């Protein structure tokens, strides 16, 4: 497989995952480059047992975990609900609502643990199968199912109480 093709298939997934995990677009861009560099370096070892996107997301998770452990351990923990200043006055109503909802989801995600956040993102954002998620996180599909169930329930509880 050519790197350019792998890059095109993965770039949005990897970047999106990292944005949700870090809530920092610049940092996510930097980590994405590290992910793609690793993909470039190890492309010859990619056997095609999983899809390129799954492989890229597995690397992205490893890069994120290694960064968070060293630089920002807080990113691995459940965070307090963050109250943001209301800046929706200057925007059209529909756009403001959309932005507000997106921001609410992001803040809710940050209130989950790293594993809950990852499992939700892989299932509901990346739309991976239970097997693929299990491959990335090292769980069996049954464990993945139950973890997704619990993570969604926790997410909704936070979203409904804070949002």
């Amino acid at each position: 497989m050519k790197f350019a093709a792998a890059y095109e298939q993965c770039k949005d997934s990897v970047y999106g995952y990292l944005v949700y995990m870090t809530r920092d677009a610049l940092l996510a861009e930097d980590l994405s480059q590290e992910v793609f560099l690793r993909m470039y370096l190890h492309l010859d070892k990619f056997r095609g047992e999983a899809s390129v996107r799954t492989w890229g997301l597995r690397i992205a998770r490893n890069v994120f975990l290694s960064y968070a452990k060293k630089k920002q351990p807080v990113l691995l923990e459940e965070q307090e609900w963050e109250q943001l200043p209301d800046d929706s006055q200057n925007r059209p109503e529909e756009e403001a609502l959309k932005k507000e909802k997106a921001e609410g989801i992001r803040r809710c995600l940050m209130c989950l643990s790293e594993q809950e956040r990852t499992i939700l993102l892989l299932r509901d954002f990346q739309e991976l199968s239970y097997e693929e998620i299990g491959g990335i996180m090292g769980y069996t599909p049954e464990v993945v199912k139950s973890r997704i169930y619990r993570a969604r329930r926790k997410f909704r509880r936070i979203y409904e109480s804070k949002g």
Partner: protein
Amino acid sequence: MEAQEKIEIPEITYQGDDKKLKERIFKFKAGSFRIAIFTIVGFVMGAYSHIYVSIGFFPVKLILAIPYKVSEAIYVSVIGTDGVPWQEGEYLFSTVFFPHSHIATFLAEICTAILISGAVYGALAYFTGDKRVFTMQRFVKFGALWCGAILLTIGGAYLVNAKAVYDNEHLRGEPHFTVYDSRGNGRGVGGGETGQRMKEYFYSELAEADIYRDYEEELPLGIVFNDVRCCVCRVNYEKMYLVTEQGKLYHISEEFAQIIRQYEEEGVILPGLPQSESAAEIIGRGEALPGGCRIPAGRQGGTFFGENITRHGQKVLALGRTGGTAG
């Protein structure tokens, strides 16, 4: 669980350009190329590092000496010089690494120096690379790989040496002898008929023995097995025994003891000469030596070392001391 509704997470697309990534990949390629070139240069330096002593120009001498000295420090600090065969104040084999095994010495003196040099020069190239691409974490992996390769070579050298010492102790292999007299004069016996006969005599009655050693009368006997293993045994021709470096005692045949005696007393190695008669007397008369050896008629007295003599119609070399009384 299945009935649970999925969470609508807004899509995010990557808006940035690929310039930074391309730049990083380019820097990685360039850096990798530089590391490869530096490593190859390091390999060459390492391969020739053992000649640093003969280089006069100091900077080159220093650059070449580093891998050799590092390698030497590793080995000598661990094995010391206790295992080196020592005779009359000189090393019998010119190495401080593994004197019992040429292969182990090659691994220690050449291969280890090559790897150390490659690692040092490769690391230099690594540190001149882009810090964002060639990170410390990657360097640790890079360094660990080199350390692994160097440790494997060191381990290999020790294993090969241990096997060589074991085989030497059991006198296994195709031997080539260097016979010494009590004054420290040594004479190597190559292949050919003389060497073949010495080998036959050597193994003919060789057996482990329990003999009371007479250290005073022992003479060194250098043996090179299969051209790759060396040892210096001690031989007592009167009591007909041989002691290995590890102290294992063997009974040797009368014929082999006679060769050692002959060299000690007459400075000549002519396997098959009877004890009752000296080589000097026979050679002096210009008569045929036992086993078909003879020298040209009229050749009496003087130096005969390296003289061609004929045996069974073939020219063979009689080995002896130059200027000795025998000749």
